[in-house]
Each structure stands twice: as structure tokens, then as C-alpha cells.
């Protein structure tokens, strides 16, 4: 057995062991199985990474599952630069989250189940990134989704958690529908689902159009946009972003792993993987860039006023994912993946830090009720601060380099690039502001919670803080591979990615680059500064501002009413339709939503049909005779004899 196979296989084995023996035999020791497995995957991934670094590209089929004509379903691995970096991200964050969970989930009655799901998720994610064909990607795509629903609804007794799981499921259906169509289109047009074949043949599609409802649509644009639909759903971009903040109902380690570092970035990964396809369609590229930029700005503004610490971080994730799409949209796939990679560390750190705070606050999430945690939880504080500095884009930390690379490349990408660059810079300021809002509200000042809570405050156990420290190191240093030439670096990561993802040609000189860099640094520091004034120096100011700009504040507080909008334009009309039309047919039964409507209609039909099965033999015989008669009569009529 080759070692690459072991990378996904180890977590799968851990899952199987935990799910089978977890309840009876392993119980409290369940974490050992999973941690060892993921550790193994990490070690192999690291060694694979060095191989790739030395120029080795691995692409082979492990197993032919179904071979039917030219339709081949295989399990195969493609490990190139893109995959290698994803492997490192997934296994390392997964490993740390596994360790952290030992402390966080301690004593939970679903302990073994939790670790089993985490391992299953890791397996699915690894299959997703390692696949060498579209179907495997699709399988991984759905499988990570499934694990995500399980884990969001992990505390299924809690209604909000169960609802959030359901919401994530339904919202993702919309995106995945498009994605599935895209996959089918690719197979129909190119007759293959293997990446290498797709990319070598995709050029033949240029200029081809397809007629939809009388409009001639460019085929490549259509396929790219259909695939992007899936990315929009999975990576929580506008307008399908609504599920991600609600997903915070799941346990915090899950949020860190799935909803920050790995699964939600699958969309970015997919777009980067299909860069030969996307690059052929300017329309699709612009759609990607603008969707990313708008989402980024939109989510950042919402994050400004939220009080729930996890929701702030969640909106921040949506915003940063928008950044990555922005990068892909301007052709800077390498920069996008670079940001994905640095973001994984500092965002996971933010989530785990938030989890540590929650742990100390006995589940309290409202930042308004915290304060002065600095002295009680020094390690959490310092690591959280590092993560915030990193995400804000303070020079020297990981976030700075990746963000700067994106903004610089966007700036150089013509008109659309300039627009998204401007938006991105604003987002940078907003990001710095809301990140430090948490720092000042939660860790500085005086404690504003109850006495009981204050009494309970404590630093988290070592098993939780050590992952924080390791992630903090990542949040500082992860970007050092990408120090731009302007700052005397070699931008190693851009060269690393160039064979797969390409690198946009930049003509502008270092002076301009310094200017762009200066603007973004100024934006970051400005954001932190305003945050300091608002929440440390003059705490009454935000309230006054909120009063003054009440309408804006309330709009932001209500997240631009998107949920309400969906309720108004989708959920309510569906209900209305169901109530007014189906009720008339089904004797006043109230049917909720179209989701229940169709099955209910079938059920009602079924109930009627069922009455034919009376239980009396004669009726059965009558049915047979009738069948005989009808067939006979029809055949004789058809035969015309």
C-alpha cells in the first residue's frame, strides 16, 4: 500500500473504530484513536509536501470503481502544489482541533461520537482535496457537507442547533444543484471527469454557445458559473451566506475546523483547481471577483455591530472568504490560496480562542457581558491578540502578506481590479476595527458579567491552550513564505504555485506597490485606532453613534434583513401557496412549505390508492382480471385485428 492512500485512510479507520467500539469499549479514550490517526496523516502529508516541493507531481488512479464505456468512476489522487498546501492546512488544523477538543468536549455524553464525526470529516475533506477527478470532488463535497450538518446539529436536543443544521442543508441544496449541473455539463461536453483530461480538452469549448430560452449563452461561462454556484453555497458567499452564522450553534472546535479553516474554503479550492476553465471566461471571472468583493464588504459591515463573539468571527470568515474569491476573480489564484492558508491559522485561532473564552464564561457569548479577561486568561488573551493583529494586516504577521498580495494584484487588474481593490481596502479597515472591538470589549476594561461568572473565570487547561499557542506561531509565521520582492523577500509561495495556478503579470513598479501597501497598513492601523477610541477611551461613543445613525445601526444589527428577506420572498410565498392551493385539495390540512408539500401530496394520493387494497380476495382477483382484460383489449386494438 502506498503512503498517499494512508493520508485519507487513517482518519477513516479512526472513524470506523470509534463508531463501532466508541460506545462500549473506548468511551473516554476515543480521542486517542482520532488524534493518532490525524497525526499520522499530518506526518505523511508533511513528507508529501517536501516531495512536491522538490518538484514531484503525483497523479494516479488508486481504484477503478465503475468502468462503463467511456464513463469511468475512479478513486484517484492528484497531488500537486495546490493539493500539497491544502493537505498541510487540513491535517494540521484538524490535528490541533482534535487536541483542543479533548479539553473542550470533556464530559460530553456524545464524546466518542464527536471524535468519530471529526475524523470522518477529515477523511472527506482529504478525499475532496486529493481527488484527481470531478466525481471524487463532488463526493467529498457532499460528504463534508453531511459531516457539517451532523456536527452543527451535534447537540440536536437544542432546537436552534437542529434548525441550524437543517438550514445549512437546505441552503446548500441550492448551490449544489448548480454544481451538480455543472459536473453533468462537463461530462456531457467533454466526455470525461478527470481533471487532466478536462483541462487538456477545455480549450475546444471556447467560442461554443448553447441556446437557453432563446439566448445564446457562452458554454464556458455557463459551466464556470454553474460550478461557482456550488462554491457560493459551500463558501457562504452572497446570497447563500445565511447558513454560516447560524452554523455557530455547533460546538466551537467544529466552527474552527469546518466553518473557518477547511470546509468553507472548499469553494475557493475548487475555483482555484478549475482555473484553466475560469480563466477562459472573463464574465465568469468578473462575477467571481465582484461576488467576493461585495460579500467581503457586506459581511464586514455586519460584523461591526454584532455582540455574539462567535457570530462576529463567523461574519469575519464570510468576509475573508470573499477576499479569497476576490483574488481568484482577478486571476491571482496563488494569492487567494495563500490567503486561504494563512487565514486557516489565524481564523482557527480566533475560534478556538473564542471557545476558550466561552469555556471560562460558562457558555456566555455576548461580548458586552465580558471585559477584563486579560488578567484571568493571559494565554488566551495573547494568542487572540496575535490572531487579531494578523487578520488586521499588521506588517510582519501572516495576514499582512497574503492580504497585501491580493490587494496588490487586484490593483493591477484593470478597471474591475481597481474597484475590488478599493472595496478590499475598506474591508481591511473594517476588519481591523471589529477584530479589535472584541479585544477591547472582552479582554480590556472591567468585567461586566455576573458575580458567579466572575468567580468562575479561569484559564483553560493545557490541552486547550497548547493548540492555541501552536496556532499563534502559525498566525505569525505562516506568511513568511510569501514576503514580496518589494520588501526584499523572494515571494517563494507565488513561485511555488506558479506551475498550477499561474501568476498574473505585473508591470507596475515597487513605488506603486509601496503605496498600495502603505494604504492598507494605514487602513489597518486606523481601524485599530478607532476601535481603541470607541471601546477603550470613550466607551459611550458607540452608543451615541448608534443613536445618531439609528437606521444604519439597526440595519447592520439585523444583518441587512437578509434572513427576513428570504423569509418574505421565499419561505412565506411557499407557505402561502401550500396553504391556499393544497388546502383546498386536501380537506383543510395545513401544510408547511413546499418541502413538506410534495411528499404530502404523494402521501394523500397514496392514502387514496391504498383503499383499493381492500384485503378482500375477490377484489384482488377482480384486479387481475381487469388487468388481463385491459392488456388484451389494448393489444388487440393496437394489432388492429
Amino acid at each position, binding site marked *: 500500500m502506498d503512503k498517499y492512500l494512508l493520508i485519507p485512510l487513517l482518519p477513516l479507520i479512526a472513524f470506523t473504530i470509534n463508531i463501532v467500539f466508541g460506545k462500549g469499549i473506548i468511551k473516554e479514550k476515543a480521542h486517542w484513536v482520532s488524534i493518532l490517526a490525524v497525526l499520522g496523516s499530518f506526518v505523511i502529508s508533511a513528507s508529501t509536501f517536501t516531495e512536491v516541493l522538490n518538484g514531484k507531481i503525483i497523479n494516479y488512479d488508486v481504484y477503478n470503481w465503475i468502468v462503463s464505456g467511456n464513463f469511468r468512476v475512479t478513486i484517484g489522487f492528484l497531488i500537486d502544489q495546490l493539493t500539497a498546501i491544502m493537505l498541510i492546512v487540513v491535517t494540521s488544523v484538524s490535528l490541533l482541533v482534535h487536541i483542543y477538543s479533548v479539553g473542550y468536549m470533556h464530559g460530553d455524553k456524545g464524546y466518542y461520537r464527536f471524535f468519530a464525526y471529526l475524523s470522518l470529516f477529515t477523511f472527506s475533506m482529504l478525499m475532496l482535496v486529493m481527488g484527481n477527478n470531478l466525481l471524487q470532488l463532488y463526493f467529498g463535497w457532499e460528504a463534508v457537507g453531511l459531516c457539517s450538518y451532523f456536527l452543527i446539529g451535534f447537540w440536536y436536543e437544542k432546537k436552534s442547533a437542529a434548525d441550524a443544521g437543517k438550514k445549512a442543508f437546505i441552503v446548500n441544496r441550492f448551490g449544489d444543484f448548480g454544481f451538480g449541473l455543472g459536473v453533468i455539463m462537463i461530462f456531457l461536453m467533454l466526455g470525461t471527469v478527470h481533471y487532466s483530461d478536462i483541462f487538456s480538452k477545455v480549450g475546444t469549448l471556447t467560442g461554443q454557445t448553447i441556446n437557453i430560452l432563446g439566448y445564446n449563452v457562452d458554454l464556458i461561462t455557463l459551466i464556470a458559473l454553474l460550478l461557482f454556484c456550488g462554491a457560493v453555497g459551500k463558501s457562504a458567499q452572497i446570497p447563500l451566506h445565511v447558513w454560516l452564522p447560524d452554523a455557530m450553534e455547533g460546538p466551537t472546535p467544529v466552527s474552527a475546523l469546518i466553518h473557518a479553516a477547511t470546509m468553507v474554503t472548499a469553494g475557493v479550492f475548487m475555483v482555484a483547481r478549475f482555473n484553466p476553465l475560469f480563466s477562459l471566461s472573463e464574465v465568469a471571472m468578473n462575477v467571481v471577483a465582484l461576488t467576493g468583493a461585495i460579500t467581503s464588504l457586506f459581511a464586514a459591515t455586519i460584523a461591526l455591530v454584532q455582540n455574539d463573539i462567535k457570530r462576529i468571527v463567523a461574519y469575519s470568515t464570510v468576509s475573508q472568504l470573499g477576499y479569497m474569491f476576490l483574488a481568484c476573480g482577478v486571476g491571482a489564484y496563488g494569492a487567494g490560496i495563500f490567503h486561504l492558508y494563512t487565514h486557516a491559522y489565524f481564523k482557527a485561532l480566533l475560534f478556538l480562542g473564542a471557545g476558550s473564552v466561552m469555556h471560562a464564561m460558562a457558555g456566555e457569548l455576548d461580548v458586552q457581558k465580558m471585559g477584563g479577561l486579560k488578567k484571568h486568561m493571559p494565554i488566551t488573551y495573547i494568542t487572540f491578540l496575535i490572531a487579531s493583529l494578523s487578520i488586521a494586516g499588521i506588517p510582519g504577521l501572516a495576514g499582512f502578506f497574503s492580504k497585501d498580495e491580493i490587494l496588490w494584484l487586484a490593483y493591477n487588474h484593470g478597471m474591475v481590479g481597481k474597484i475590488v481593490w478599493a472595496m478590499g481596502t475598506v474591508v481591511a479597515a473594517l476588519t481591523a476595527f471589529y477584530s479589535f472591538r472584541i479585544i477591547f470589549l472582552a479582554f480590556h476594561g472591567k468585567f461586566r458579567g455576573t458575580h458567579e461568572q466572575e468567580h468562575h473565570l479561569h484559564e483553560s487547561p493545557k490541552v486547550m491552550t497548547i493548540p492555541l499557542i501552536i496556532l499563534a506561531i502559525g498566525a505569525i509565521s505562516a506568511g513568511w513564505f510569501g514576503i514580496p520582492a518589494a520588501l526584499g523577500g523572494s515571494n517563494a509561495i507565488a513561485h511555488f504555485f506558479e506551475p498550477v495556478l499561474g501568476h498574473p503579470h505585473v508591470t507596475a513598479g515597487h513605488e506603486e506597490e509601496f503605496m498600495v501597501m502603505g494604504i492598507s497598513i494605514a487602513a489597518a492601523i486606523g481601524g485599530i485606532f478607532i476601535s481603541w477610541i470607541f471601546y477603550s477611551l470613550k466607551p459611550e461613543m458607540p452608543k451615541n453613534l448608534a443613536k445618531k445613525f439609528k437606521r444604519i445601526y439597526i440595519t447592520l444589527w439585523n444583518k441587512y434583513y437578509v434572513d427576513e428577506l428570504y423569509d418574505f420572498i421565499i419561505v412565506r410565498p411557499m407557505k402561502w401557496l401550500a396553504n391556499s392551493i393544497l388546502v383546498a385539495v386536501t380537506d383543510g390540512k395545513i401544510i408547511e412549505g413546499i418541502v413538506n408539500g410534495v411528499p404530502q401530496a404523494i402521501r394523500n394520493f397514496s392514502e387514496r390508492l*391504498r*383503499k383499493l*387494497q*381492500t*384485503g*378482500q*380476495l*375477490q377484489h384482488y*382477483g*377482480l384486479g387481475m*382480471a381487469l388487468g388481463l382484460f385491459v392488456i388484451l383489449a389494448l393489444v388487440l386494438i393496437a394489432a388492429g385485428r
Partner: protein
Amino acid sequence: MVPLNWYIGLSAVIFVIGMVGFIVRKNILIMLMSIELMLNSVNISLVAFSHYLQDLRGQVFVFFIITVAAAEAAIGLAILVALFKNKAAVHTDEIMEMKG
């Protein structure tokens, strides 16, 4: 000489009578007898064919059908007796516990 068609016609009439008897009668015993009627109508046509085609296979078949009919009757009546012991029912509307 009687035409072959007459036999086929007679057999068809008896077959359909048996079929109708099976469908309309509620008494399980009569239903059983209806099946026997249908089998006999088949036998008539087979013997007639055998005669007109100058081939013995039809008659051999009839022999087997009679054998099977005997076995069938024995088993059917045994099932009926078992049912009767439990429920004292000989009508199909008394055995409608399972439906839907």
C-alpha cells in the same frame, strides 16, 4: 365431425365461468371449486387439441394437471381447515385483517 373450434369455445365458456365464480363468490370452498372448473376447461381444450393434432402430449399434460389439481386441492383444504380451527371463517370478507 365436430369442428375443433367448438371445443375451444366450450372450454373458453367454462373457463370464464370459473373465473367469474372465483371473482364473485365469497365462499372460499366455491372459489376453490371455481379454480377446479378453470383447470377442467383447460383439460378439455388440451384433450381436444390432442385429438385433432394426433399428438399424445396434450393428454400427458392433462394427466399432470389432474395430479397437480389433486395436490392443490389437498393443500388448499388443509390451509382452510387450519384457518377454520382458528377463526371459524369460510368467507373472504371474514379474512380481511390485512389490507392497505
